């Protein structure tokens, strides 16, 4: 059983304005406290320094560099960078393959996240309140295993599991008289087969986030709900959602970003095939950058994708903030 002691629990905390669940990581919560006299802003800034140094060295500089490269034609195996102005960017607009991959990725992202969130939330709810379950810790460990296995290995083995001649699924199907299905090479199946593996890998993550979200619901409020005889829907609407939504939505956000970037999995499972039916934008970009070594063009593509991702996330966070302030 999970008996590891933890020091954070609301009972130990003096009640303070900072301790409300829905008010965590964003927006200044209160005016300067009486202790502000103790703090030198420079000391505070110096605490940020190491993180900022890492951030500037390994995120800002490469990003600026990437933006610059986007204006050059630079293929690693062909020659040195050549300034081409906005050519790369105009090429992007007419790059049908890229937009094909982009729309495919959106469909994949929406389906994957949709399924993972619903399934994850459902299973998370199912596991809620099972703390007395025998072997719960082991069961959860087994369930979380798919998300901690190296995607590169999962992809490779799912390829084998799906294989028509050697795979276990077709072997089992064969036993009930179904003809072998080429899951990863049939254009009708490949997308769904990859989606299935993604769901298998990442639903556990949404289960984890659901459990965490449910864990942030104060017991007292639940007890109050019980006394008030709220029905399940009301309980979710008025007690669980306000407390848990931030964590849950953060989980959705992380999954959305990661699904948008899916690369490892298709690289091992299908190489984007058959044809281009599982070619997602992350993998397409990877192929541009490291198969064709088109560093200039792929930088331009990367910039466009980054802007899309940031725009998307901002809207998302804005909506989340809005719903919080209501």
């Amino acid at each position: 059983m999970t008996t590891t002691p933890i020091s954070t629990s609301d009972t130990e905390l003096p009640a303070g304005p900072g301790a409300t669940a829905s008010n965590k990581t964003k927006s200044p919560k209160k005016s300067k406290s009486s202790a502000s006299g103790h703090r030198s802003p420079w000391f505070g800034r110096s605490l940020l320094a190491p993180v900022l140094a890492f951030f500037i060295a390994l995120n800002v500089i490469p990003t600026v560099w990437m933006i610059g490269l986007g204006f050059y034609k630079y293929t690693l195996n062909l020659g040195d960078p050549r300034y081409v102005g906005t050519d790369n960017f105009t090429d992007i607009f007419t790059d049908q393959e890229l937009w094909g991959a982009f729309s495919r990725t959106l469909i994949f992202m929406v389906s994957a996240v949709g399924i993972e969130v619903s399934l994850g939330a459902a299973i998370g709810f199912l596991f809620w309140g099972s703390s007395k379950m025998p072997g719960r810790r082991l069961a959860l460990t087994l369930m979380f295993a798919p998300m901690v296995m190296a995607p590169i290995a999962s992809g490779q083995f799912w390829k084998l599991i799906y294989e028509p001649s050697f795979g276990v699924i077709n072997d089992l199907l064969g036993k009930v008289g179904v003809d072998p299905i080429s899951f990863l090479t049939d254009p009708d199946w490949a997308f769904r087969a990859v989606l299935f593996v993604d769901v298998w890998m990442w639903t556990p993550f949404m289960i984890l986030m659901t459990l965490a979200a449910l864990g942030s619901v104060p017991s007292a409020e639940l007890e109050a709900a019980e006394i008030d005889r709220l029905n399940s829907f009301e309980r979710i609407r008025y007690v669980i959602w306000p407390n848990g939504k931030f964590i849950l939505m953060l989980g959705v956000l992380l999954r959305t970003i990661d699904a948008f970037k899916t690369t490892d999995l298709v690289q091992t499972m299908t190489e984007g095939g058959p044809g281009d039916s599982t070619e997602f934008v992350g993998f397409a970009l990877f192929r541009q950058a490291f198969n064709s070594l088109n560093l200039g063009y792929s930088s331009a593509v990367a910039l466009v994708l980054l802007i899309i991702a940031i725009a998307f996330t901002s809207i998302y966070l804005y909506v989340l903030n809005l719903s919080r302030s209501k």
Partner: protein
Amino acid sequence: MTATENEATTEESNETLVSRRSLFRGGLGLGAGVALGGVLAACSSGDGSAGGSNGDDPIDVDNVDAEDPLRGSNETNMQGKTVEMGFAVLAGWPPSQAAVELYPEFAKYAKEKFGYTTTVKKTEAGFDKLFQQLAPGLSSGSQENNIMISDSQWLGAFAERDWIVRAEDVYAINPDLDLDPYSSLVRKTYQEYPDGSGTRWGFPQMPDTQGLFMRLDMLEDEANQTAFEEQYGKKLPTTYEEFEPMTMVEYEEIFEFFNRPEEGMHGTAMMYGKDYDSFSCAYHPYAYTTGDIWNPETGEVIGFLNTDDHATALEYFVSLQKYQPPGSEANGIGTMIDLFTEEKVFSAMQWLAVGLAMDGDGKLEGKILAVPHPKFEFPDGSIDVIGAMGGQPWVINKFNDDDHMRVAIDFLRWWYSDDAQAKFEDAGGLPWTADKVNAEGFEDSKYYARAFKEMLGEDKSRDFWHLPQYAELLAIQQEAYNKYAADPDAFDPKRVLDFIAVKQQEILLDNGVTDVAIPDELKDITLE
């Protein structure tokens, strides 16, 4: 600016600096400001032309210093030193791994002969990844890998960037290394860039050609013999001599005969996979029957790759999936081995150099017949075949310091010695020199040696593009071909070829390889 850099390229250490500096300009400079970066990058493009001009300038053999590292070691200049060599080899490709495995033998030889100690460490990656693993290091002037395996198509990229030593220069100084090849295919495939220029860059390591592996025990089986005779009114062939002249159409009967899905057995297996060059190499022999896939002289693809004859060939090649296990659209070298050794197929089209692994660790020993690639009817009515070339050369890193360069040359000298070549052949390697391939008993030395020799004959095989743009060109056709193979009913093969030809020619146009514009009616072609 350009002039000074031209001079600088003759000094290796300077070259490293230069290319680092150029990266700095091409990178940080860009970041600082795109407009400024433009000026800077224009300067740094001098590097590229410096590399190019280097290639036209043959080495002056009479004035080569006695200590020139390209001579290799002599009795004195390496005494007592210790050198760790970096080898870049193909993962899971025994012939390429053999060099690393045999390295201790070379170390012993070097110790005795030149008095230095040497060890090896390897970088390895699969066919589709090795070049991409090497390029970043080379672009920074790294000598992390002193000797590298290059797939034949990569030669252009290595050479164009001036990342490797010209074999021509090494041969000029060391004529003993310039061995006589069995056929001109060796030079054309593993050494020459640009095609037809006569300038050699690579050192042949492992030659390879295509063949068909069949289950001899199934062919010889009495019941099969009788049944086949009954069904087709002719004898089921069993020998190399009987199979050798057969065309693919004739083979079809045999594939059909052994195609028994209900028993878990299929007639054959071929590569239709999207990975690396699986589909391309398997399909090219069908296309070569009616012409090449591009025009190396003018750089044109349109009108060569997408002829009606090629469309028929493509359609035919894909139609052969009917004799194969499902999922053939993912087939590559590895799948061929698994399907064949696990006895799921009667036959498999495969690289002959893989013969070592096709017997499933001895499980099928003596039960396999390997023959040359099936033939086709050529437009002039003759029956013949032009296979695709496989195999790889060595290339030597240009950024090697003097000691590493000497050891690299010493290694090549040792590698091409009879002693080392014999060990290489024992480890599954195949020879490429005239005297070794013609040697008595070679054809019987391995069950696939005879077919290999046949396909290495003059004009029996052909390699495609050594262009630096190969990766992009290949990716385009692999994807389109694979798309067609996965759903042949949804596409017109001619349109598939049109699409590939247009996309490839666009790349060649962009890079100045060709100046033939794309016809208007094909310009906006899509493959949907």
